[in-house]
């Protein structure tokens, strides 16, 4: 099998793309939003204000659970859960004399080095979240802003460390690191006590709207890819888009991360949404669709990045956040 991706446009993107290729394939299967515990933008009825109604189970569904159960029974030790690495590097201490512990110590240092690099890649996510908070909650005091900024920076550090840990010693994790969420949630938590109820609700609505926009963009991206390959009619395009909307799963936003990846000489097929596609194809299209997703289904090589890999965005430090500028 050959896999080829589009050429990343920046060195940061290139580095991130390399890391993505290293992501264990199993991680992609579970790379959806975890339960919204701890997210203050989640409404009481279970709707994730920042994420719509997420499907709570793993993407693999019952089959996925079954496969994991079989896998665990055969090789119970194979799925390691890496020990979390403390944020404070000082806790690592001196390198131990014991060879086994020294090896673990060195591995930890490698993870930290990688995490430093990832922190740079995650910066645009932080700036985006800060901007959104500033726009929806303009009345924050200087102290509150500094607190939120500190929470955001700590979240970036922690997320980078988790990501690097998973990359380098991760084994087969139950859930891939969702960088977008793990930076947003601590910031929202820090924001809540400082923002008025009205402004915090506005912030939640914006998060929800952004999430809905991503889902809509992913839906049309899926249809566009099918259209390229299967020459859909306008009616088929509409029908598939509606079907996708009616049965939407959050994990399907992964389509937005497809930057031209090719498997076996073909663009990856959005086979995860098969049930919404099959009924709308004619016999000839169906036959080609089946061949295509067998050859280049995303389940084969799929991964889910979920953040801005280009590194472009709001780079200039916003002095408002450090409390130097009032409005």
């Amino acid at each position, binding site marked *: 099998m050959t896999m080829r991706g*589009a*050429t990343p*446009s920046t060195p940061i993107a290139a580095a991130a793309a390399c890391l993505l290729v290293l992501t264990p394939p199993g991680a992609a299967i579970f790379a959806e939003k975890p339960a919204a515990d701890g997210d203050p933008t989640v409404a009481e009825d279970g709707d994730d204000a920042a994420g719509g109604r997420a499907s709570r189970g793993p993407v693999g569904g019952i089959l996925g659970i079954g496969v994991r159960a079989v896998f665990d029974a055969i090789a119970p030790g194979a799925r390691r859960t890496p020990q979390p690495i403390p944020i404070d590097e000082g806790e690592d201490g001196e390198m131990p004399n014991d060879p086994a512990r020294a090896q673990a110590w060195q591995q930890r240092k490698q993870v930290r080095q990688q995490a430093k690099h990832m922190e740079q890649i995650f910066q*645009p*996510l932080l*700036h*985006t*979240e*800060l*901007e*959104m908070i*500033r*726009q*929806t909650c303009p009345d924050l005091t200087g102290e509150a802003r500094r607190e939120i900024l500190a929470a955001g920076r700590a979240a970036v550090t922690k997320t980078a460390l988790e990501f690097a840990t998973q990359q380098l010693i991760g084994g087969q994790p139950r859930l891939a690191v969702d960088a977008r969420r793990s930076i947003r949630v601590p910031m929202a938590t820090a924001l809540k006590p400082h923002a008025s109820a009205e402004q915090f609700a506005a912030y939640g*609505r*914006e998060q929800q*709207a*952004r999430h809905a*926009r*991503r889902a*809509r*963009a992913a839906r*049309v*991206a899926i*249809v*566009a890819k099918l*259209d*390229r*390959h*299967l*020459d859909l*009619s*306008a009616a088929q*395009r509409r029908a598939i888009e509606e079907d996708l909307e009616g049965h939407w799963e959050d994990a399907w936003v992964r389509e*937005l991360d497809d*930057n*031209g990846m*090719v498997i076996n*000489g073909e*663009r990856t097929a959005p086979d995860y949404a098969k049930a919404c596609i099959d009924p709308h*194809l*004619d016999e*000839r*299209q169906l*036959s*080609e669709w089946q*061949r295509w997703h067998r050859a280049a289904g995303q389940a084969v090589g799929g991964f889910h990045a979920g*953040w*801005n890999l*280009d590194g*472009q*965005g*709001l*780079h*200039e430090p*916003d002095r408002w956040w450090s409390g130097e500028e009032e409005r």
Partner: protein
Amino acid sequence: MIRSLQACLCAGVVAGLPALADDDRIVDQPEPAVSQPEQQHLIDLAANFDANLFEQQGNGWVLRGGVQFGNGLNVRDRVRVMANGRLIIAGADASGGRPAESPTRASVRLLAEKRLERIAAACALTELQRRDLRLAIESDIRRCTAEIEALRGKYAGVRVNLNDQEGQKTWHQFQQDVQHCRRILRNVLDGDSLFASVLPTTLEAGQLAGIEEETRQRRSFRWRVMVAATLTRMDDMLGLTQVQHDVIEKALLARDPGLRVAELKPEQDTTHLQQNLVYLVLSECEPSSLRKAVSERQWKSLALLMNQGKSMRSWIEQQGILDQPSGPPQR
């Protein structure tokens, strides 16, 4: 007893044979100079010509070693084309054996067939109309194939080493020739082609309207897809609110750049190209309403993106994703 001793001695001698004393390593004669074949650097340009012209997405470049399948066919013999949901494999006859005609012609015919099938789906062609259009297509294919084959023939059996200057020079010329062939291919049924001139006279007004409508819908859909995808990137970069998003989206959707939908090549509009096209179109929108909608911080970044798109205008236009004024391809 003696026999046992002899056996032990023999065994000892045999066992000791492979052992080398230190002085056995004195001789350090260099191996006779054998010329190392530089296979890893040699690129078969004939095979790459087909791969880059018929298979490569976008206007990028792919480098392959000398790809030959067991039956002596080239990579192009595996080109797959979907024509209205029907899979056709180029370059093979019904039995899947050797191609019955020039591989270039077979590939171009398949791509043209896709166009014809799309037209048929949009306006229900009669058999007579279909025959007439096919005849026009055949004529255009012959013309285009002759041009492509002439350039392709330059590279038959040519293998270059990209590590030497001469090889790089040949590769550069090769790229120019493939790029020219891409333009020929893109325009084979457009502009001054026989097909383009015959189509309006062969079809009824209602049928032409059907094709126009189908094209309009597909073009509008593709633009919507590009705008939606790029706006999610901008969401990530700028932290847009819904109102800001709507202002930008409305401005973009109102300016349809005239995407080319009758492509005769594999997918050309890569993500990078799509984003820059959207930034370019955004740079042509009325700036005051955009500026008013976003914050000063967002505007700084947005202006950078728009400038990026603007600076790439000529590159974007060269990629062939926009409908161009008709005319012969320029070298």
